[in-house]
């Protein structure tokens, strides 16, 4: 018992990974696997959104970084013949660099104005990719190369053309980004991030440069959003500007809020996965319900569970004690 208690975190982590590895084997239906992939991408975005929330910025433009990553990787593969595997990193780096430039200039702004800047930025990105011929214009980009087979020692040549194999690529990306952000959140860095929205002047008078930490958080979140974007480009094989509308950024925000602010990695994972699962079920019933559902969820969560699902166990415990 004491062993379990002492290593709870590690056991939860190993358990989660085992579940994720086995999921597509239990539900082999390709549509289900497609849904799981949607969950993973949403989770990475929601984690990033929560990471940015730590520095006091409510981002309304996460989808822009998904787009930048996706378009970079797709164009690299199509025009320069660069392997999608390198494109994953390239997409992330492009997103990260744009976030760096944007962050250094705009993260000095605080509060609501900053949210509006992220929103405007996302719209600028969407308008650029839907107008310029270079980015495929309104029609988007078709026939993006899929992940090419890899020679893995001991396994021989492994092909990545099925949804199942792509699921495992995404699982690896999700694990790396989740671990990275979890570690960041739970270290001195995370505590520094959290101090900034509470009292930025005090934090600075104690010896740190606030902008530096804001940029670190922002760039990390956007880097992983870019990698996820690059993955979607090669997984779907098409990119279309209509998938980067502002509503998608708001959905990221709802997913992050639903998951909970207590932990960046767990909150993002919980919110992203749960919302996408319900969404895909609703799509089968009637697509019109999806936005109504998101609207109802954000209202309910804001009123009844403002700290998200992660705060639910604590709340239940409190009720239990009172009774």
């Amino acid at each position, binding site marked *: 018992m004491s062993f379990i208690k002492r290593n709870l975190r590690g056991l939860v982590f190993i358990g989660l990974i085992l579940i994720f590895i086995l999921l597509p084997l239990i539900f082999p239906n390709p549509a289900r696997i497609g849904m799981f992939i949607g969950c993973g991408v949403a989770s990475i975005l929601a984690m990033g959104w929560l990471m940015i929330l730590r520095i006091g910025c409510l981002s309304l433009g996460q989808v822009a970084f998904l787009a930048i990553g996706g378009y970079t990787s797709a164009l690299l593969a199509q025009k320069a013949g660069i392997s999608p595997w390198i494109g994953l990193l390239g997409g992330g780096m492009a997103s990260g660099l744009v976030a760096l430039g944007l962050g250094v200039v705009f993260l000095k702004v605080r509060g609501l104005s900053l949210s509006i800047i992220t929103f405007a930025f996302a719209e600028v990105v969407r308008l650029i990719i839907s107008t310029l011929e270079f980015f495929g214009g309104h029609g988007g980009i078709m026939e993006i190369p899929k992940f090419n087979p890899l020679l893995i020692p001991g396994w021989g040549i492994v092909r990545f053309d099925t949804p199942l194999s792509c699921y495992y690529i995404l699982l690896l990306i999700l694990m790396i980004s989740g671990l990275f952000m979890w570690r960041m959140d739970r270290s001195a860095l995370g505590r520094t991030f959290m101090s900034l929205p509470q009292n930025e002047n005090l934090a*600075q008078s104690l010896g740190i440069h606030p902008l530096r930490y804001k940029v670190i958080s922002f760039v990390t979140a956007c880097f992983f959003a870019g990698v996820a974007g690059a993955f979607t480009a090669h997984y779907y094989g098409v990119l279309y500007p209509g998938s980067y509308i502002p509503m998608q950024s708001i959905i990221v925000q709802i997913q992050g809020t639903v998951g909970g602010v207590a932990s960046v990695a767990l909150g993002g994972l919980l919110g992203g996965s749960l919302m996408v699962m319900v969404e895909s079920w609703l799509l089968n019933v009637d697509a019109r319900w999806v936005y109504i559902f998101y609207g109802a969820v954000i209202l309910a969560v804001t009123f009844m569970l403002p700290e998200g699902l992660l705060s639910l166990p604590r709340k239940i415990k409190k009720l239990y004690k009172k009774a």
Partner: protein
Amino acid sequence: MALLEIKQVSRNFKGLTALSKIDIDVQEGEILGIIGPNGAGKTTLFNIISGFLSPTHGEIRFRGKNIVGLRPDMIARKGLVRSFQGVGLFPMATCLGNLILAHHLYQEIGFWKTMAHTGSYGAREKEVKAKSLAILKTLNLDDKKDMAAKDIPYGYQKMLGIAMALATDAQVLLLDEPVAGMNPPEALAMTQEIKRIRAELKKTIVLVEHNMKMVMGVCDRIVVIQYGLKIAEGPPELIRNDPQVIKAYLGTAEAYHDTSN
């Protein structure tokens, strides 16, 4: 040579002169009080020393080196840390969390070192926690260590703010109204604490304060500012009897009321 030299510092806000050619020398180990009526420019001076504002003219030297133009965090790292008027802490964190944060912010660790948790990281975490607990204990705050900072009484909040400045190991503490809004016992406790910090921790302290009893009781030297000008400087007995100071400040009914509490 003085530890902190403020030389001919002026500051204008669009034609309004908030400070005009202020000269102050702070000696190592002393407690210097800056007093003056509301709007005299005391907090402006603090903001200039700590780097949140830049002076229009003049120079500030710390250990002989000019610090004008440096960012507040750079000045803090040089060993000049300030507290804030009102409540200056991280309201959502616990008391212990506030102190741990103060340690972390001051001894910033590199990005990759933090992410990798290499080598001394774990040991450092423990050390910081132990140090923070020790500071809380000396301030009699250890029974409140797990309460959110926003939930503890006002007097303790101010005390915690000063504890955070102490956590940085800075040589000079700039305290902006440390006993403002406190009741007499709280103010007395704070006064004793400030004396103890100087005696035991060998810090140099510059404070701005309205409570005359406290200022007269704790300071070695007092500088009086009025309308951005320095009008007097000297030990408390001298300031108390300076006719110009009495006229400017102590002579009013409100100031007398201040003295009595």
